[in-house]
């Protein structure tokens, strides 16, 4: 794949390093000449000096043949502009953008960023995981779909413990692809699988059914 990364700070440079190592064709754009020199010395001639939000530099970078653009700067306004020019002018099929302020995630989604990536949200998700008051954890939102992958930890004293999957009152449009049993063993559940306290359930569901799903496994409102 041809992947263009805008922003060669820690995030952009690390992304470039990984992608080059896995054999992708990569170009990194930054308006800091020192960063471009450093990345080119390290990874070969993959840097372009310029403003990655400008049509001129996207054209020079060959955006029209890019499979993916990654907007990785520390400024959300820049990242949004990069994605909008790439998608609207050059029809790039996939746009990933770093969201620095989580309040901006909504506008990124509305304006067609395929994958807004927020470090703050990732940190919050990990905190969620450690708090007993949050028995449902968001793991992934599927691209071009309303479905999401969530994780539910079954409390030891939950009403679901000892029941089989088919006995549970699961909400519609919800699937259980995987259960991590308390002994650490993964299992693809069937209707006869018995729910154990301490098990971690991976479920695919819709946001509107999250509460019903959580209730089914934890009994908590």
């Amino acid at each position: 794949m041809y992947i263009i990364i805008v922003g060669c700070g820690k995030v952009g440079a690390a992304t470039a390093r990984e992608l080059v190592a896995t054999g992708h064709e990569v170009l990194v754009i930054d308006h800091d000449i020192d960063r471009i020199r450093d990345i080119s010395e390290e990874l070969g001639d993959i840097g372009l000096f310029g403003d990655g939000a400008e049509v001129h530099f996207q054209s020079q970078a060959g955006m029209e043949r890019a499979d993916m653009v990654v907007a990785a700067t520390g400024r959300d306004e820049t990242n949004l502009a990069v994605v909008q020019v790439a998608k609207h002018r050059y029809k790039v099929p996939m746009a990933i953008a770093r969201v620095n302020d989580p309040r901006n995630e909504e506008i990124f989604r509305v304006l067609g960023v395929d994958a807004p990536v927020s470090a703050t949200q990732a940190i919050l998700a990990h905190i969620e995981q450690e708090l007993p008051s949050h028995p449902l954890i968001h793991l992934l939102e599927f691209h071009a779909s309303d479905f999401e992958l969530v994780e539910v930890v079954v409390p030891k004293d939950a009403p679901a413990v000892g029941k089989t999957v088919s006995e549970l009152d699961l909400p519609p449009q919800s699937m259980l692809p995987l259960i991590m049993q308390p002994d650490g063993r993964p299992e693809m559940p069937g209707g006869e699988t018995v729910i154990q306290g301490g098990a971690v359930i991976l479920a695919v569901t819709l946001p509107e059914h999250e509460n019903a799903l959580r209730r089914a496994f934890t009994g908590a409102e």
Partner: protein
Amino acid sequence: MRFVIMGCGRLGRTVATTLDSEGHEVSIIDFHEAAFQLLPESFGGRTVLGNGVDKQIQAEAGTPEADVFMALANGDNRNAMAAQVAKHLHGVDRVVARIFDTERAEVYRELGLEAVNPTSIVSDLVRQAAFGS
């Protein structure tokens, strides 16, 4: 009419003052308190301190009820983002953004913004001035 303006620099200030004197309802957002001190004493509109790109600050400035939102700060990317927050998250029909980059102004026009491009306008004026016509 009701206007919300982001950016209380030379341009934002001038537009806000003019609209206010014409009897329109004006709110102006800037993240520097000092910027408001340059407004004339006669200015009767509202000043809102904060980041004009932020949905919440736009709401405090009355953007959901505005007829027009204008993004007149210095950065093209900031202006484009603020204008699109007003349009898509607050439902403002008419949004104006100052975009210095001529090519990007074209992109944003296609995306439904009233992108005003000072570079092309002023270059025409400069040319006219040079040729004396």
